[in-house]
């Protein structure tokens, strides 16, 4: 099969140059989403009725039940005009349409991850033994301290594989950022391909690029999980 090898190699470097954007699109939403996801998880874990449970559950259900493409289209079509109307109403002299589109990408992915991460944390907390909280309180810790020092660390270890999964899915999800004119790996590949119609070479390059990034992420999580889980029993022969 004819492959333009020169193009293949050249484009690979172009794709490589876009890797930082993809990483930014992954790491920033993850970090930004974490506190909100934790809050939502804890709200939903509370026994009994709470004013917050309904809207928060509805939000999570909405994000989980709709394709991310749709979420991107919705935010990208709505937010700029909304912000524009707001800044005009408050008489700020800012041109919303000059903003770097990556800003909108951060918002979409963060909103998405908040919901998905809250589900992961909710089930992770749910799997920590109830007795741990009781024992902590008996030992004199307040509920908050118990959560921070005892429950959260244990929940995190359980959650690690799922968070790894979530991160890998997010990395793949960022491939849709081109819909918001963000110059991530997939976007630059598309652009590069359209110049000379070398589509297959460009997409093969970006395909390899994602495999490398996802693999590195999985290796990092593997070490993180092993480190955090040192207190667990290891199989002694």
């Amino acid at each position, binding site marked *: *099969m*004819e492959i333009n090898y020169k193009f293949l190699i050249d484009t690979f470097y172009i794709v490589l140059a876009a890797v930082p954007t993809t990483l930014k699109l992954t790491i920033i939403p993850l970090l930004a989403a974490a506190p909100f996801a934790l809050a939502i998880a804890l709200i939903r874990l509370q026994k009994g009725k709470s004013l917050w449970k309904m809207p928060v559950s509805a939000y999570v*259900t*909405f994000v*989980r*039940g*709709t*394709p*991310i*493409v*749709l979420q991107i*289209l*919705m935010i990208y*079509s*709505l937010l700029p*005009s*909304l912000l*524009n*109307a707001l800044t005009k109403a408050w008489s700020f002299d800012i041109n919303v349409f000059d903003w770097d589109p990556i800003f909108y990408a951060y918002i979409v992915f963060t909103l998405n991850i908040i919901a998905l991460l809250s589900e992961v944390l909710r089930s992770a907390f749910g799997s920590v033994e109830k007795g741990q909280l009781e024992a902590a309180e008996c030992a004199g810790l307040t509920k908050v301290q118990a959560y921070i020092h005892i429950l959260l660390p244990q929940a995190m270890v359980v959650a690690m594989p799922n968070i790894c999964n979530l991160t*890998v899915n997010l*990395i*793949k*999800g960022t*491939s*849709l950022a081109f819909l918001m004119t963000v110059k991530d790996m*997939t976007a630059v590949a598309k652009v590069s391909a359209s110049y000379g119609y070398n*589509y*297959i070479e460009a*997409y*093969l390059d*970006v*395909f390899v690029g*994602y*495999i490398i*990034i*996802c*693999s590195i992420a999985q290796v990092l999580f593997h070490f993180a999980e092993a480190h955090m889980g040192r207190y667990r029993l290891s199989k002694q022969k």
Partner: protein
Amino acid sequence: MRPFSLQFLVDVFPILLPFLSATLAVVVGTIFFGSIAGGLLAWAKAGSYKLLERLAQAYTYIIRCTPPIVLLFIVFYGLPKFCLEVLDTNINDYDKLFFVIISFTFLFAAPVSEVMRSAYEAIDHGQYEAAVSIGLSPWQAFFHIVLPQATVVALPNFGNSVISLMKDGSLAYTIGFIDLIGKGQLIVSMNYGAYAMETYLALALIYLILTIGMEKLFLWIEQRFSRHKQAA
């Protein structure tokens, strides 16, 4: 900014709904072919032949690291080229549905093979041993005893894979396939970008109904087939 038009939201549903069949065609076609492919991969992973096992594992790993849209583009642009140059057939004019189902079959087969493999391994080997010990052939033991039990174990995870597939399938419009989202985009562009929010909201509601409906369906199926597990 233009106010939200509830009227448009209501009016757009009957325009969108006929294209539900396109979306479902993708899902059903992919489930069919993808489950067969996934079954073959799961069999390979069961380890009868080391080489096949490694290949199946490599395949699953690679697909797991691949964004669906990249896979879609590779198939859409690469397959015609491959067919033309290697098999000497021109498939450029084939219906986009063909390319969509092929890409998503490649995509779906990987998680499905994992679902099947882990469900199979969850069944105690003693069930198989008991079956052959009273004279069933290995194939009969698998088909009559192991498979039914493994299917029940697999159901929830299989359901999750189907729901993921439904959501990933929405990317088909990027190669010009006119399904729900494809039609939605056409509507938005026909209105020069106006009523975008209403259109997308309508699509979101349709997808919510689909995904929540799927979840409930699989839950119901699982309960029906788990009657034997309820202790007296």
